[in-house]
């Protein structure tokens, strides 16, 4: 038997952990496309991985090829997987212990006498992304504006 509170928290926790893994994967993009290095002050910097491509350029003397350094990040399709929605539903026996509502799972879902008992309840939980709080959204947008000003 498990209390309703703990059960709901467990389901939510599992989904949030899965989402955290996906969030970490977007941080992982940095590791895939940037190399860690140090600047003159010894501070850590991320240097984009680049490949050099010969690019044709027409000059007075004809076609010349110039080297263009292309960050790998701009060549790879970037996808950020996210969880759209998780729907969880279960059948359980309602029970009481220590004056609290508890859930007891059916041992055999094909057992008619058990599944037709009037103690059987159905629980459905839908977990979906919530809008980022306005304050945080404004901060992130502010950072983005500052970033755009710095990028040539």
């Amino acid at each position, binding site marked *: 038997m498990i209390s*309703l*509170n703990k059960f*709901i*928290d467990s389901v*939510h*926790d599992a*989904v*949030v952990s899965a*989402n955290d893994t*996906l*969030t970490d994967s*977007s*941080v992982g*993009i*940095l590791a895939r496309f*940037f190399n860690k*290095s140090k*600047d003159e002050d010894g*501070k*850590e*910097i*991320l*240097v*984009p991985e680049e490949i050099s491509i010969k690019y044709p350029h027409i000059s007075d003397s004809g076609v010349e090829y110039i080297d263009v350094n292309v960050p790998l990040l701009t060549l790879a399709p970037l996808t*950020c997987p*996210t*969880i759209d*929605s*998780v729907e969880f539903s279960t059948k359980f026996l*309602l*029970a*009481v*212990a220590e*004056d*609290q*509502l508890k859930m007891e799972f059916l041992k055999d879902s094909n057992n008619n006498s058990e599944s037709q008992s*009037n*103690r*059987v*309840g*159905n*629980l*459905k*939980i*839908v*977990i*979906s*992304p*919530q809008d*980022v*709080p306005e304050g*945080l959204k404004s*901060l*992130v947008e502010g*950072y*983005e504006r500052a*970033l755009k000003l*710095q*990028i*040539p």
Partner: protein
Amino acid sequence: MRIFQHRKRNKHTLSLCKIILSLKEAFFDNQEFFNGYQIQKLSEFYKEDGTPVLRRIRIDKDRFIEVPLINLVNYAPLCISEFSLSFNIKSRFINIKEVEKQISQIEGTGFDLFLGRDKGDNKIVSVKLSFKR
């Protein structure tokens, strides 16, 4: 208003009122858990003094930019947007006045209580307590 009785020991009983309360408690506890998680998550993006965690990225030979980590991740907090609990009870265990009182208490909180007669047995009432954000 007793609804469920433990078959072996009759001393364990649960009222519809208690079920509604348990579900509300479970939901609000979960909200607290979620709020705590949100704050803990933010600590990954901000230092204790409030400055954002930055990644220094080289954009050309001589220039670097400092990008807040929060701008580099796909942060979409997940929370419970909907849940429902449904079960059947015998109609003799329902006190309409008390149910009406319960409904008035949960009005405006996103909770909804639905009571309907079972088609096969009119002594059975199906109860659905739901929440939608």
